[in-house]
């Protein structure tokens, strides 16, 4: 495409603030995502304290929550608000924008061999809309009646009628505004990623030579483009119901002593629209993490990713199936049981490509030469959590079984292990691995090890016991469990979970410290510190606008020729070196890798 990116003068504003350079935008997404992540984790620690020690006075609660924690005891209203905003922030702001936004932006042009994204301007807008939506979401915490509190799923009528709960007033309005702007940000980004990947690959970079990260980001962007607009429509109809007297979701309501005039709508319409995005959304979250894992495991095993084509096929299968499973969130809504059966069928099918991916990762490790960088540890951890969390999905996806575990802690355990562990591990792994490309330095390895081990152990410690709580019948989103004697024996488990949560939360300080310290005090990175094959390691260490000085390299092979023997089997393809960058032409007598 156009090669004139290197020629305009950059001011402080155009370089650091309204930058159109994908690398700077990646960093903006990352740091904003991290800040939102800190807020989200803090919230979770607050409500976990309430769950472990209900009714106990905590002065820090009163300090942080003011009127919402009179006498140091959290009020039920703010509990639900914390749970709601925690979910919203983590799902959208951290794991979607923070994960996709960072790595799609950083890696797509670098790994496909492009000077920048198709439209630097739209890319810049994509970040600033994300920033704006983050500001609005955080602002909603400070309104008089509190932020949205109907769960991150904000089902109407609870979210539609301000008198139904405190948070459904201005808090809910701001939530909807924030999310509408967030969706715009996401769509702008996704369109850019798709256009760039299709149109701007360098010479020789056919689709089947692309690293799996790019395949993952590509398919994720398509998922986003097809599903986020439906959430936007759900939100718009909700805004209409809230402010313009319509009845899309409302009918036969008597709330707070008042008979409402709405007739003819159904809350189930909202659920369909919401989950039509909601389910692909979780794959939008996990696919980039899986792509990143393929890259990191392969590079650090000094072996090709096992089953490259099968990995692509499974990404496509997961993406396709993700559109036809949303009803598994709605088995108990009163939806037709036959429809429920259809969704059970499709949901259990999606386990198959997921299993293929897990087995392929493990086979990549087999007979490898494993380099245990912190990124590699997190990637191995991801495989463990993906399997552990994934199998309980089979229970929940079975409509009959969902009857007794729906909306219990069994669900909370399941989705946290796959999102709160697997996806965030992918994000951590990506940060450790591509830090040299982000900040031209290296993060501290020992701190990385400490971060990994404490996080891994605590993370399982928090979420694994939740399956037992769910099978004991404990519902989610309960402010306190003391009203039901049958749950008294679960109190110890809740304390254990909270203990691990607090410890795990503190462990993240190690990461934050490492991250920010290394920007200025970390060891300077070399050009290709992990001895990778992909194109991003052929750019100079110092960032430059346009990525490569001179011509963009031509690609002659796929991305996974690690430890490839030469044609005579006497040495590696490049003697004495166990990797062959994509830019290396095929040697005499060499066959292509796949």
């Amino acid at each position, binding site marked *: 495409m156009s090669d004139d990116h290197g020629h305009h003068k950059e001011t402080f504003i155009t370089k650091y603030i309204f930058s159109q350079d994908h690398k700077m935008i990646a960093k903006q997404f990352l740091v904003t995502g991290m800040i939102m992540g800190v807020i989200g984790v803090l919230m979770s620690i607050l409500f976990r304290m309430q769950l472990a020690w209900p009714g106990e006075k905590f002065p820090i609660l009163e300090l942080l929550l003011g009127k919402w924690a009179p006498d140091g005891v959290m009020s039920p209203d703010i509990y639900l608000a914390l749970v709601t905003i925690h979910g919203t922030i983590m799902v959208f702001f951290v794991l979607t924008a923070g994960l996709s936004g960072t790595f799609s932006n950083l890696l797509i042009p670098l790994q496909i061999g492009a000077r920048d994204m198709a439209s630097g301007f739209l890319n810049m807008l994509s970040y600033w809309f994300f920033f704006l939506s983050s500001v609005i979401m955080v602002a909603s915490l400070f309104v008089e009646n509190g932020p949205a509190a109907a769960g991150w799923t904000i089902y109407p009528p609870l979210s539609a009628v301000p008198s139904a709960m405190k948070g459904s007033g201005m808090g809910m309005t701001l939530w909807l505004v924030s999310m509408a702007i967030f969706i715009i940000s996401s769509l702008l980004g996704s369109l850019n990623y798709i256009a760039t990947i299709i149109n701007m690959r360098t010479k020789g970079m056919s689709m089947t030579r692309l690293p799996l990260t790019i395949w993952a980001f590509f398919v994720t962007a398509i998922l986003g483009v097809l599903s986020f607009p439906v959430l936007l429509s759900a939100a718009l109809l909700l805004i209409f119901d809230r402010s313009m007297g319509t009845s899309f979701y409302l009918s036969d309501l008597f709330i707070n002593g008042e008979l409402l005039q709405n007739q003819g709508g159904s809350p189930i319409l909202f659920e369909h629209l919401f989950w039509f995005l909601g389910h692909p959304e979780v794959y939008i979250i996990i696919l980039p993490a899986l792509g990143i894992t393929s890259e990191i495991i392969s590079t650090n095993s000094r072996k090709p990713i096992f089953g490259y084509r099968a990995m692509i096929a499974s990404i496509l299968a997961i993406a396709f199936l993700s559109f036809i499973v949303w009803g598994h969130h709605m088995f108990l809504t009163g939806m037709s*049981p036959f429809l429920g059966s259809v969704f059970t069928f499709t949901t259990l099918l999606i386990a198959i490509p997921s299993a293929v991916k897990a087995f392929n990762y493990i086979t990549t490790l087999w007979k*490898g030469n494993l380099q245990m960088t912190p990124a590699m540890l997190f990637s191995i951890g991801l495989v463990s959590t993906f399997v552990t969390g994934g199998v309980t999905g089979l229970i929940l996806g079975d409509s009959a079984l969902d009857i007794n575990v729906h909306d219990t802690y069994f669900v909370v355990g399941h989705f946290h292990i796959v999102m709160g562990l697997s996806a965030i591990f992918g994000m951590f792994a990506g940060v450790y691995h591509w830090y040299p490309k982000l900040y031209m330095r290296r993060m501290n390895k020992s701190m990385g090890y400490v971060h990994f081990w404490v996080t891994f152990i605590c993370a399982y410690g928090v979420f694994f016991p939740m399956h037992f709580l769910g099978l004991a019948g404990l519902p989610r989103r309960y402010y306190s469990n003391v009203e039901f004697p049958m749950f008294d024996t679960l109190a110890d488990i809740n304390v254990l979970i909270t203990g691990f949560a607090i410890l795990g939360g503190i462990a993240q300080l190690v990461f934050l410290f490492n991250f920010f310290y290394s920007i200025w005090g970390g060891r300077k990175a070399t050009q290709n510190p992990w001895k990778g094959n992909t194109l991003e390691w052929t750019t100079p260490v110092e960032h430059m606008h346009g990525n490569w000085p001179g011509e963009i390299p031509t690609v002659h092979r796929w991305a996974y020729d690690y430890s490839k023997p030469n044609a005579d089997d006497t040495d590696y393809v490049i003697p004495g070196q166990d990797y062959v960058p994509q830019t290396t032409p095929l040697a005499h007598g060499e066959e292509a890798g796949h």
Partner: protein
Amino acid sequence: MTGLIIAIVAILAILVVLQVMRVTSLSSDLQDGKDNEVSSKDNDTQGTLLLLFGIGFMIAFVWMLIAWGDVLLPKAASEHGGDYDSLMSISMWMCIAVFVLVNPVLFYFAFKYRGLKGTKATYYEHNNKLELIWTTVPAVVLAVLIIYGLTTWSNITNPDNTDNEPMIVELYAQQFNWTARYSGEDNTLGYANVALIEGANFLGVDLNDERAKDDFIVKELYLPKGKPVKFRFRSQDIIHSAYMPHFRAQMNCVPGLITEFQFTPTVTTSEMRSDKYVMKQVKNVNDIRLVKGKEVWEFDYVLLCNKICGSAHYNMQMPIKVVEQAEYDQWVAKQSQLAQN
């Protein structure tokens, strides 16, 4: 003063950490030179830790099963509940099998193939036969689970009522309590709608409807053992969910429509109270309650709200009693009397 001391300690701690970071960074430089990001010693240590974690994880899992096995719900108290529990059992064991087979392999490989000095990787990029195996085996296992699950689902949601007409009971949900309306002799509920709510008629029953004449309203559910009951759920305000975990029953209550769920209770409250597993659970609960100075608990079935509905969502409950037919008939007679007066 405390604040100042905490601040000084925090700053010193940060300085310590900074120095430790610089030392570790320099020392790993010395070990393997500046080129290597990780040394073979790192790989050895981390690989070994991963193996130890894998072993520890499995041990922890077994420990959890033993320690927390008795907090799980007792045996099902409904007819379909037995099918539910069998399906759950088989599905869980399948999940556990995958969990205990795949995780150890993962951590073992991470250990066995850790990059020691001289380790070389094998270039092995695909094997279609292997892919086929681990695509078809899960597919077959899942197909079995799907068929089994869907049959169970169909039996639960579409029960055969040809010989046994279910008793109709309305469960009315509102922020933040439950009300039950029995349909009486005619087994038909009178028409009701929130538009008709007025004063004492807080359910909005159409009092002129013939079918409503024998309806009676209670705040505690009584169910006869062995008789199918079909619940019709209504909500006054927002989405709630009627969760009756002992019966393996749950259904959302959605304003604007009526949802249904049918089951047949098979264990009376007193039978449940004499069940060994339940007795152990009750004892564990009461041991805790004694320490906290709370009153003793006797097992009761319970209806909980299980869909976020506002501030008191965590305490929206109604007791359920399952009794023998005779006791049930007596109770009905008394309630009907009260309704007439």
